[in-house]
Protein backbone atom coordinates (compact mmCIF):
# COMPACT_ATOMS: atom_id res chain seq x y z
CA UNK A 1 0.00 0.00 0.00
CA UNK A 2 1.04 3.57 0.56
CA UNK A 3 4.72 4.20 1.08
CA UNK A 4 6.74 7.41 1.35
CA UNK A 5 8.11 8.42 -2.02
CA UNK A 6 11.84 8.25 -2.58
CA UNK A 7 12.71 9.31 -6.16
CA UNK A 8 15.95 7.38 -5.95
CA UNK A 9 14.16 4.05 -5.65
CA UNK A 10 12.39 1.87 -8.21
CA UNK A 11 8.62 2.29 -8.60
CA UNK A 12 5.74 0.87 -10.63
CA UNK A 13 2.04 1.37 -11.11
CA UNK A 14 0.16 -0.74 -8.58
CA UNK A 15 -1.19 -3.87 -10.34
CA UNK A 16 -4.73 -2.93 -9.24
CA UNK A 17 -4.54 0.44 -11.02
CA UNK A 18 -5.88 1.16 -14.50
CA UNK A 19 -4.52 4.13 -16.40
CA UNK A 20 -6.62 5.73 -19.14
CA UNK A 21 -5.21 8.27 -21.59
CA UNK A 22 -7.05 11.57 -21.82
CA UNK A 23 -6.57 14.84 -23.69
CA UNK A 24 -5.40 16.47 -20.46
CA UNK A 25 -3.11 13.60 -19.44
CA UNK A 26 -4.59 10.50 -17.88
CA UNK A 27 -7.05 9.16 -15.35
CA UNK A 28 -5.90 6.55 -12.87
CA UNK A 29 -8.34 4.34 -11.02
CA UNK A 30 -7.46 1.98 -8.18
CA UNK A 31 -9.84 -0.98 -8.12
CA UNK A 32 -8.98 -1.85 -4.53
CA UNK A 33 -9.37 1.56 -2.88
CA UNK A 34 -11.83 2.88 -5.53
CA UNK A 35 -9.83 6.06 -5.66
CA UNK A 36 -9.62 8.15 -8.81
CA UNK A 37 -6.65 10.37 -9.65
CA UNK A 38 -6.28 12.95 -12.36
CA UNK A 39 -2.91 13.16 -14.00
CA UNK A 40 -3.12 16.65 -15.38
CA UNK A 41 -0.26 16.51 -17.87
CA UNK A 42 0.79 14.19 -20.67
CA UNK A 43 4.33 14.21 -19.37
CA UNK A 44 3.21 13.00 -15.95
CA UNK A 45 1.24 10.21 -17.64
CA UNK A 46 4.39 9.23 -19.54
CA UNK A 47 6.42 9.24 -16.34
CA UNK A 48 3.91 7.01 -14.56
CA UNK A 49 3.67 4.59 -17.50
CA UNK A 50 7.44 4.24 -17.70
CA UNK A 51 8.11 3.80 -13.97
CA UNK A 52 8.26 0.02 -14.21
CA UNK A 53 10.94 0.17 -16.92
CA UNK A 54 13.19 2.70 -15.24
CA UNK A 55 15.69 2.07 -12.44
CA UNK A 56 14.27 4.91 -10.34
CA UNK A 57 11.50 7.47 -10.15
CA UNK A 58 14.01 10.18 -10.96
CA UNK A 59 15.19 8.29 -14.05
CA UNK A 60 11.59 7.92 -15.21
CA UNK A 61 11.18 11.70 -14.98
CA UNK A 62 14.42 12.34 -16.91
CA UNK A 63 13.47 9.82 -19.61
CA UNK A 64 10.10 11.53 -20.06
CA UNK A 65 11.84 14.85 -20.60
CA UNK A 66 11.09 16.48 -17.25
CA UNK A 67 13.43 19.48 -16.96
CA UNK A 68 15.43 20.22 -13.81
CA UNK A 69 13.23 23.19 -12.92
CA UNK A 70 10.10 21.00 -13.17
CA UNK A 71 11.56 18.12 -11.19
CA UNK A 72 10.29 19.17 -7.77
CA UNK A 73 6.70 19.47 -9.03
CA UNK A 74 6.83 16.05 -10.71
CA UNK A 75 8.32 14.42 -7.65
CA UNK A 76 5.56 15.95 -5.56
CA UNK A 77 2.97 14.53 -7.95
CA UNK A 78 4.59 11.09 -7.70
CA UNK A 79 4.65 11.41 -3.93
CA UNK A 80 0.89 12.07 -3.97
CA UNK A 81 0.37 8.98 -6.10
CA UNK A 82 2.51 6.95 -3.70
CA UNK A 83 0.53 8.20 -0.69
CA UNK A 84 -2.74 7.11 -2.28
CA UNK A 85 -1.28 3.74 -3.28
CA UNK A 86 -1.51 4.34 -7.03
CA UNK A 87 2.18 3.62 -7.44
CA UNK A 88 4.20 1.28 -5.27
CA UNK A 89 7.85 0.60 -4.71
CA UNK A 90 9.21 -2.42 -6.53
CA UNK A 91 12.37 -4.37 -5.80
CA UNK A 92 15.30 -2.83 -7.70
CA UNK A 93 16.59 -4.98 -10.53
Amino acid at each position, binding site marked *: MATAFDPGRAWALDP*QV*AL*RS*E*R*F*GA*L*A*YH*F*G*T*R*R*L*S*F*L*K*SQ*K*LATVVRSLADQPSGHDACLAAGVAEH*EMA*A*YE*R*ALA*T*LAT*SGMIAERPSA
Partner: protein
Amino acid sequence: MSASGPIGASVTPSAPAGPVGRLVDQFQSGLDAPICLTWELTYACNLACVHCLSSSGRRDPRELSTAECQAVIDELQRMQVFYVNIGGGEPTVRRDFWELVDYATAHDVGVKFSTNGSRLTPAAAERLAASDYVDVQVSIDGATADVNDAVRGPGSYAMALTAMDRLAAAGFSGFKLSVVVTRQNAGQLDDFQAIADRYGAQLRLTRLRPSGRAVDVWDELHPTSAQQRELYAWLSDRGERVLTGDSFFHLAPFGDPLPGLNLCGAGRVVCLIDPVGDVYACPFAIHESFLAGNVRDQGGFTAVWRESALFAELRRPQTAGICTSCEHFDSCRGGCMAAKFFTGLPLDGPDPECALGHGETLLAARGGQQVPRSSPDHSRVRPLDRACDESPLAGTALDVLLA
Protein backbone atom coordinates in the same frame (compact mmCIF):
# COMPACT_ATOMS: atom_id res chain seq x y z
CA MET B 1 -32.63 2.16 -6.40
CA SER B 2 -31.46 4.65 -3.87
CA ALA B 3 -29.97 7.86 -5.12
CA SER B 4 -26.47 6.99 -6.14
CA GLY B 5 -24.30 9.83 -7.28
CA PRO B 6 -22.41 8.53 -10.23
CA ILE B 7 -18.89 9.44 -9.21
CA GLY B 8 -18.36 7.69 -5.95
CA ALA B 9 -14.61 7.49 -6.06
CA SER B 10 -12.41 9.60 -3.86
CA VAL B 11 -10.69 12.21 -5.88
CA THR B 12 -7.03 13.11 -5.89
CA PRO B 13 -5.87 15.72 -8.35
CA SER B 14 -2.26 15.01 -9.12
CA ALA B 15 -1.13 18.09 -10.84
CA PRO B 16 2.15 19.69 -11.59
CA ALA B 17 1.07 23.03 -13.06
CA GLY B 18 0.22 22.09 -16.62
CA PRO B 19 -1.15 23.85 -19.66
CA VAL B 20 -4.46 21.98 -19.60
CA GLY B 21 -6.43 24.46 -17.54
CA ARG B 22 -9.03 23.60 -14.98
CA LEU B 23 -10.21 20.04 -14.82
CA VAL B 24 -13.85 21.07 -14.52
CA ASP B 25 -13.55 22.77 -17.90
CA GLN B 26 -12.04 19.59 -19.37
CA PHE B 27 -14.91 17.58 -17.97
CA GLN B 28 -17.56 20.10 -19.00
CA SER B 29 -16.69 19.46 -22.63
CA GLY B 30 -16.98 15.69 -22.14
CA LEU B 31 -14.60 12.74 -22.25
CA ASP B 32 -14.33 10.05 -24.96
CA ALA B 33 -15.70 7.59 -22.41
CA PRO B 34 -17.50 7.99 -19.12
CA ILE B 35 -15.41 7.68 -15.96
CA CYS B 36 -18.14 5.48 -14.56
CA LEU B 37 -21.81 5.03 -15.16
CA THR B 38 -24.96 3.91 -13.45
CA TRP B 39 -26.61 0.82 -14.83
CA GLU B 40 -30.08 -0.08 -13.64
CA LEU B 41 -30.21 -3.80 -14.44
CA THR B 42 -33.91 -4.26 -13.84
CA TYR B 43 -37.05 -2.29 -13.04
CA ALA B 44 -38.22 -5.22 -10.92
CA CYS B 45 -38.23 -4.55 -7.19
CA ASN B 46 -39.71 -6.22 -4.14
CA LEU B 47 -40.02 -2.83 -2.44
CA ALA B 48 -42.01 0.22 -3.51
CA CYS B 49 -40.09 3.12 -1.98
CA VAL B 50 -42.12 6.30 -2.30
CA HIS B 51 -39.11 8.24 -3.61
CA CYS B 52 -37.81 5.64 -6.10
CA LEU B 53 -35.95 7.66 -8.72
CA SER B 54 -36.49 5.01 -11.40
CA SER B 55 -40.21 4.40 -10.64
CA SER B 56 -39.40 0.71 -10.28
CA GLY B 57 -41.68 -2.18 -9.42
CA ARG B 58 -42.48 -4.43 -12.37
CA ARG B 59 -39.92 -6.10 -14.58
CA ASP B 60 -39.90 -4.72 -18.12
CA PRO B 61 -40.28 -7.56 -20.65
CA ARG B 62 -37.84 -5.77 -22.97
CA GLU B 63 -35.06 -6.01 -20.35
CA LEU B 64 -31.58 -6.62 -21.82
CA SER B 65 -30.71 -10.31 -22.00
CA THR B 66 -27.61 -11.77 -20.39
CA ALA B 67 -25.82 -11.78 -23.76
CA GLU B 68 -26.80 -8.16 -24.42
CA CYS B 69 -25.53 -7.12 -20.98
CA GLN B 70 -22.27 -8.94 -21.64
CA ALA B 71 -21.92 -7.12 -24.96
CA VAL B 72 -22.33 -3.81 -23.13
CA ILE B 73 -19.65 -4.86 -20.62
CA ASP B 74 -17.34 -5.72 -23.54
CA GLU B 75 -17.82 -2.17 -24.81
CA LEU B 76 -17.20 -0.68 -21.39
CA GLN B 77 -13.97 -2.66 -21.20
CA ARG B 78 -12.84 -1.36 -24.59
CA MET B 79 -13.69 2.20 -23.55
CA GLN B 80 -11.89 1.70 -20.22
CA VAL B 81 -14.88 2.70 -18.13
CA PHE B 82 -13.47 2.04 -14.69
CA TYR B 83 -16.59 0.91 -12.89
CA VAL B 84 -20.36 0.67 -12.98
CA ASN B 85 -22.80 1.54 -10.23
CA ILE B 86 -25.37 -1.19 -10.60
CA GLY B 87 -28.86 -0.54 -9.35
CA GLY B 88 -32.45 -1.03 -10.34
CA GLY B 89 -35.05 -1.86 -9.20
CA GLU B 90 -33.42 -4.42 -7.01
CA PRO B 91 -30.60 -5.71 -9.20
CA THR B 92 -30.11 -8.97 -7.28
CA VAL B 93 -33.53 -10.24 -8.39
CA ARG B 94 -32.08 -10.84 -11.86
CA ARG B 95 -31.24 -14.53 -12.15
CA ASP B 96 -28.01 -13.69 -13.94
CA PHE B 97 -26.98 -10.99 -11.44
CA TRP B 98 -23.89 -12.74 -10.06
CA GLU B 99 -22.96 -13.99 -13.51
CA LEU B 100 -22.95 -10.40 -14.77
CA VAL B 101 -20.98 -9.14 -11.76
CA ASP B 102 -18.35 -11.83 -12.39
CA TYR B 103 -18.32 -11.05 -16.10
CA ALA B 104 -17.75 -7.34 -15.44
CA THR B 105 -14.92 -7.80 -12.97
CA ALA B 106 -13.27 -10.39 -15.24
CA HIS B 107 -13.35 -7.72 -17.96
CA ASP B 108 -11.71 -4.95 -15.93
CA VAL B 109 -14.96 -3.19 -15.10
CA GLY B 110 -15.33 -2.70 -11.34
CA VAL B 111 -18.76 -3.08 -9.79
CA LYS B 112 -20.52 -1.26 -7.01
CA PHE B 113 -24.11 -2.26 -6.56
CA SER B 114 -26.99 -0.87 -4.54
CA THR B 115 -29.32 -3.25 -2.79
CA ASN B 116 -32.16 -3.22 -0.30
CA GLY B 117 -30.50 -6.28 1.21
CA SER B 118 -33.33 -8.72 0.61
CA ARG B 119 -31.20 -11.22 -1.29
CA LEU B 120 -27.96 -10.82 0.61
CA THR B 121 -27.73 -14.36 1.90
CA PRO B 122 -24.80 -15.41 4.11
CA ALA B 123 -23.30 -17.09 1.03
CA ALA B 124 -23.64 -13.89 -1.03
CA ALA B 125 -22.04 -11.91 1.79
CA GLU B 126 -19.06 -14.26 1.85
CA ARG B 127 -18.69 -14.06 -1.87
CA LEU B 128 -18.66 -10.26 -1.68
CA ALA B 129 -16.17 -10.22 1.17
CA ALA B 130 -13.79 -12.25 -0.96
CA SER B 131 -13.72 -9.83 -3.90
CA ASP B 132 -11.66 -6.65 -4.13
CA TYR B 133 -13.47 -5.57 -7.26
CA VAL B 134 -17.03 -5.59 -6.00
CA ASP B 135 -18.44 -3.07 -3.56
CA VAL B 136 -21.93 -3.01 -2.16
CA GLN B 137 -24.12 -0.31 -0.76
CA VAL B 138 -27.08 -1.16 1.41
CA SER B 139 -29.85 1.43 1.44
CA ILE B 140 -31.70 2.68 4.47
CA ASP B 141 -33.47 6.01 4.63
CA GLY B 142 -34.05 6.22 8.36
CA ALA B 143 -31.78 5.45 11.32
CA THR B 144 -34.84 4.00 13.01
CA ALA B 145 -37.38 1.55 11.62
CA ASP B 146 -40.28 4.00 11.85
CA VAL B 147 -38.56 6.72 9.80
CA ASN B 148 -37.13 4.23 7.29
CA ASP B 149 -40.21 2.07 6.81
CA ALA B 150 -42.48 5.07 6.23
CA VAL B 151 -40.52 5.68 3.01
CA ARG B 152 -39.16 2.26 2.03
CA GLY B 153 -42.01 0.07 3.27
CA PRO B 154 -42.76 -2.20 6.24
CA GLY B 155 -39.95 -4.56 7.21
CA SER B 156 -37.36 -2.89 4.98
CA TYR B 157 -35.30 -1.57 7.90
CA ALA B 158 -34.97 -4.99 9.51
CA MET B 159 -34.14 -6.48 6.10
CA ALA B 160 -31.29 -4.01 5.50
CA LEU B 161 -29.86 -4.51 8.99
CA THR B 162 -29.93 -8.29 8.53
CA ALA B 163 -27.98 -7.84 5.30
CA MET B 164 -25.43 -5.66 7.09
CA ASP B 165 -25.13 -8.24 9.88
CA ARG B 166 -24.28 -10.82 7.25
CA LEU B 167 -21.74 -8.62 5.49
CA ALA B 168 -20.04 -7.85 8.80
CA ALA B 169 -20.10 -11.52 9.82
CA ALA B 170 -18.47 -12.44 6.52
CA GLY B 171 -15.68 -9.98 7.25
CA PHE B 172 -16.63 -7.41 4.60
CA SER B 173 -15.52 -4.11 6.07
CA GLY B 174 -15.93 -0.82 4.32
CA PHE B 175 -19.16 -1.59 2.51
CA LYS B 176 -21.40 1.42 2.12
CA LEU B 177 -24.45 2.38 4.11
CA SER B 178 -26.36 4.53 1.67
CA VAL B 179 -28.86 7.12 2.85
CA VAL B 180 -30.98 9.60 0.92
CA VAL B 181 -31.25 12.67 3.15
CA THR B 182 -34.85 13.69 3.78
CA ARG B 183 -36.67 16.13 6.03
CA GLN B 184 -37.61 13.15 8.23
CA ASN B 185 -34.08 11.74 8.67
CA ALA B 186 -31.94 14.89 8.49
CA GLY B 187 -31.90 14.97 12.28
CA GLN B 188 -30.47 11.43 12.42
CA LEU B 189 -27.08 11.98 10.78
CA ASP B 190 -25.14 11.07 13.93
CA ASP B 191 -27.30 7.98 14.33
CA PHE B 192 -26.56 6.89 10.75
CA GLN B 193 -22.88 7.37 11.46
CA ALA B 194 -23.19 5.22 14.58
CA ILE B 195 -24.85 2.43 12.59
CA ALA B 196 -22.13 2.59 9.96
CA ASP B 197 -19.44 2.50 12.66
CA ARG B 198 -21.09 -0.48 14.31
CA TYR B 199 -20.75 -2.47 11.08
CA GLY B 200 -17.34 -1.14 10.03
CA ALA B 201 -19.16 0.39 7.06
CA GLN B 202 -18.72 3.76 5.39
CA LEU B 203 -21.60 6.19 5.45
CA ARG B 204 -22.78 7.60 2.15
CA LEU B 205 -25.30 10.43 2.11
CA THR B 206 -26.96 11.48 -1.11
CA ARG B 207 -29.43 14.05 -2.18
CA LEU B 208 -33.16 13.44 -2.66
CA ARG B 209 -33.99 14.33 -6.25
CA PRO B 210 -37.55 14.89 -7.41
CA SER B 211 -37.05 12.14 -10.02
CA GLY B 212 -39.20 9.09 -10.71
CA ARG B 213 -41.84 8.61 -8.05
CA ALA B 214 -40.11 11.17 -5.84
CA VAL B 215 -41.76 13.87 -7.92
CA ASP B 216 -44.94 13.12 -5.94
CA VAL B 217 -43.35 13.36 -2.50
CA TRP B 218 -40.50 15.82 -2.95
CA ASP B 219 -42.40 18.74 -1.45
CA GLU B 220 -42.91 16.84 1.82
CA LEU B 221 -39.62 14.93 1.88
CA HIS B 222 -36.91 17.32 0.77
CA PRO B 223 -34.92 18.89 3.62
CA THR B 224 -35.81 22.40 4.76
CA SER B 225 -33.33 25.18 4.14
CA ALA B 226 -32.33 25.12 7.82
CA GLN B 227 -31.65 21.37 7.49
CA GLN B 228 -29.62 21.95 4.33
CA ARG B 229 -27.39 24.34 6.22
CA GLU B 230 -26.93 21.87 9.09
CA LEU B 231 -26.24 19.09 6.60
CA TYR B 232 -23.58 21.19 4.90
CA ALA B 233 -21.87 21.92 8.24
CA TRP B 234 -22.06 18.26 9.24
CA LEU B 235 -20.52 17.12 5.94
CA SER B 236 -17.83 19.81 6.05
CA ASP B 237 -16.72 18.60 9.48
CA ARG B 238 -16.34 15.05 8.23
CA GLY B 239 -14.58 15.69 4.92
CA GLU B 240 -13.78 12.55 2.94
CA ARG B 241 -14.88 10.21 5.73
CA VAL B 242 -18.48 10.48 4.55
CA LEU B 243 -19.18 9.83 0.88
CA THR B 244 -21.71 11.97 -0.95
CA GLY B 245 -21.51 10.82 -4.57
CA ASP B 246 -20.75 14.46 -5.26
CA SER B 247 -24.44 15.16 -4.83
CA PHE B 248 -24.41 18.25 -2.61
CA PHE B 249 -22.37 20.67 -4.69
CA HIS B 250 -25.36 23.01 -4.79
CA LEU B 251 -24.67 23.69 -1.10
CA ALA B 252 -21.18 25.09 -1.75
CA PRO B 253 -22.35 28.72 -1.29
CA PHE B 254 -22.62 27.96 2.46
CA GLY B 255 -18.81 27.90 2.63
CA ASP B 256 -15.91 26.01 1.08
CA PRO B 257 -16.80 23.38 -1.52
CA LEU B 258 -17.28 19.86 -0.16
CA PRO B 259 -14.78 17.17 -1.26
CA GLY B 260 -15.36 15.88 -4.78
CA LEU B 261 -15.50 17.07 -8.34
CA ASN B 262 -18.32 19.51 -7.71
CA LEU B 263 -19.78 19.55 -11.16
CA CYS B 264 -22.73 18.03 -12.95
CA GLY B 265 -21.23 15.19 -14.95
CA ALA B 266 -24.43 14.32 -16.82
CA GLY B 267 -23.62 13.18 -20.38
CA ARG B 268 -20.08 14.53 -19.90
CA VAL B 269 -18.33 12.08 -17.58
CA VAL B 270 -21.25 9.92 -16.41
CA CYS B 271 -24.59 8.62 -17.69
CA LEU B 272 -27.26 6.02 -17.05
CA ILE B 273 -28.10 2.81 -18.89
CA ASP B 274 -31.60 1.65 -17.98
CA PRO B 275 -32.85 -1.96 -17.92
CA VAL B 276 -34.06 -1.86 -21.54
CA GLY B 277 -30.79 -0.34 -22.75
CA ASP B 278 -31.93 3.26 -22.99
CA VAL B 279 -29.09 5.67 -22.28
CA TYR B 280 -29.96 8.79 -20.27
CA ALA B 281 -27.75 11.70 -19.29
CA CYS B 282 -27.84 10.77 -15.62
CA PRO B 283 -29.61 8.41 -13.20
CA PHE B 284 -31.84 11.21 -11.97
CA ALA B 285 -33.10 12.14 -15.42
CA ILE B 286 -35.16 9.22 -16.69
CA HIS B 287 -37.25 11.28 -19.08
CA GLU B 288 -37.39 11.45 -22.86
CA SER B 289 -35.86 14.95 -22.73
CA PHE B 290 -32.61 13.37 -21.49
CA LEU B 291 -32.70 10.18 -23.59
CA ALA B 292 -29.60 9.95 -25.78
CA GLY B 293 -30.16 6.59 -27.49
CA ASN B 294 -30.19 2.86 -26.84
CA VAL B 295 -27.34 0.35 -26.53
CA ARG B 296 -29.23 -1.86 -29.02
CA ASP B 297 -28.85 0.85 -31.70
CA GLN B 298 -26.25 0.57 -34.47
CA GLY B 299 -22.83 1.31 -32.93
CA GLY B 300 -23.96 0.31 -29.45
CA PHE B 301 -23.27 2.28 -26.30
CA THR B 302 -20.06 3.72 -27.73
CA ALA B 303 -21.90 5.46 -30.54
CA VAL B 304 -24.54 6.81 -28.19
CA TRP B 305 -21.86 8.23 -25.87
CA ARG B 306 -19.79 9.74 -28.64
CA GLU B 307 -22.37 10.80 -31.22
CA SER B 308 -25.70 11.56 -29.60
CA ALA B 309 -27.02 15.04 -30.28
CA LEU B 310 -28.21 15.39 -26.69
CA PHE B 311 -24.78 14.66 -25.21
CA ALA B 312 -23.13 16.98 -27.72
CA GLU B 313 -25.49 19.71 -26.52
CA LEU B 314 -24.71 19.03 -22.85
CA ARG B 315 -20.99 19.28 -23.62
CA ARG B 316 -21.30 22.74 -25.11
CA PRO B 317 -20.86 25.72 -22.80
CA GLN B 318 -24.11 26.15 -20.88
CA THR B 319 -25.97 29.35 -20.26
CA ALA B 320 -26.69 29.90 -16.61
CA GLY B 321 -29.32 32.63 -16.81
CA ILE B 322 -29.66 34.66 -13.67
CA CYS B 323 -27.05 32.49 -11.91
CA THR B 324 -24.27 33.91 -14.10
CA SER B 325 -24.07 37.04 -11.99
CA CYS B 326 -23.99 35.12 -8.69
CA GLU B 327 -20.66 35.23 -6.87
CA HIS B 328 -21.05 31.54 -5.98
CA PHE B 329 -21.66 30.33 -9.53
CA ASP B 330 -18.16 28.93 -9.86
CA SER B 331 -18.70 26.50 -7.02
CA CYS B 332 -22.37 25.55 -7.42
CA ARG B 333 -22.69 25.96 -11.21
CA GLY B 334 -26.45 26.28 -10.97
CA GLY B 335 -26.91 22.98 -9.17
CA CYS B 336 -28.64 19.86 -10.43
CA MET B 337 -30.24 19.74 -13.87
CA ALA B 338 -32.66 16.96 -12.90
CA ALA B 339 -33.75 18.74 -9.71
CA LYS B 340 -34.62 21.80 -11.77
CA PHE B 341 -36.35 19.86 -14.52
CA PHE B 342 -38.61 17.78 -12.30
CA THR B 343 -39.65 20.77 -10.19
CA GLY B 344 -40.61 22.66 -13.34
CA LEU B 345 -37.84 25.25 -13.00
CA PRO B 346 -35.86 26.52 -15.99
CA LEU B 347 -32.57 24.66 -16.55
CA ASP B 348 -30.66 27.92 -16.92
CA GLY B 349 -31.38 29.17 -13.44
CA PRO B 350 -31.01 28.30 -9.76
CA ASP B 351 -31.41 24.87 -8.22
CA PRO B 352 -34.73 24.44 -6.34
CA GLU B 353 -32.64 24.03 -3.19
CA CYS B 354 -30.28 26.94 -3.95
CA ALA B 355 -28.40 27.75 -0.75
CA LEU B 356 -29.21 31.44 -1.21
CA GLY B 357 -32.95 30.78 -1.42
CA HIS B 358 -33.37 31.78 -5.06
CA GLY B 359 -34.92 28.38 -5.87
CA GLU B 360 -37.58 28.72 -3.20
CA THR B 361 -38.62 32.05 -4.65
CA LEU B 362 -39.05 30.48 -8.07
CA LEU B 363 -40.89 27.46 -6.66
CA ALA B 364 -43.33 29.75 -4.89
CA ALA B 365 -43.97 31.60 -8.14
CA ARG B 366 -44.68 28.34 -10.01
CA GLY B 367 -48.25 28.12 -8.75
CA GLY B 368 -50.17 25.02 -9.72
CA GLN B 369 -48.21 24.33 -12.89
CA GLN B 370 -47.82 20.65 -13.86
CA VAL B 371 -44.27 19.32 -13.39
CA PRO B 372 -42.72 16.82 -15.83
CA ARG B 373 -42.83 13.14 -14.85
CA SER B 374 -40.37 10.37 -15.65
CA SER B 375 -41.69 8.76 -18.82
CA PRO B 376 -41.05 5.08 -18.10
CA ASP B 377 -43.05 4.12 -15.00
CA HIS B 378 -42.83 0.54 -13.78
CA SER B 379 -44.59 1.16 -10.48
CA ARG B 380 -46.82 -1.67 -9.39
CA VAL B 381 -50.29 -0.20 -9.59
CA ARG B 382 -53.65 -1.84 -9.09
CA PRO B 383 -55.72 -2.61 -12.23
CA LEU B 384 -58.20 0.05 -11.18
CA ASP B 385 -55.52 2.69 -11.45
CA ARG B 386 -54.34 1.46 -14.82
CA ALA B 387 -57.79 2.20 -16.19
CA CYS B 388 -57.26 5.81 -15.21
CA ASP B 389 -54.01 6.18 -17.14
CA GLU B 390 -55.37 9.00 -19.27
CA SER B 391 -56.50 11.02 -16.29
CA PRO B 392 -54.24 13.79 -15.06
CA LEU B 393 -54.39 12.02 -11.71
CA ALA B 394 -52.78 8.85 -13.10
CA GLY B 395 -50.00 7.73 -10.83
CA THR B 396 -51.22 9.55 -7.76
CA ALA B 397 -52.25 6.21 -6.26
CA LEU B 398 -48.71 6.16 -4.88
CA ASP B 399 -49.62 8.88 -2.43
CA VAL B 400 -51.51 6.21 -0.56
CA LEU B 401 -48.19 4.74 0.48
CA LEU B 402 -47.45 7.86 2.49
CA ALA B 403 -50.61 7.58 4.51
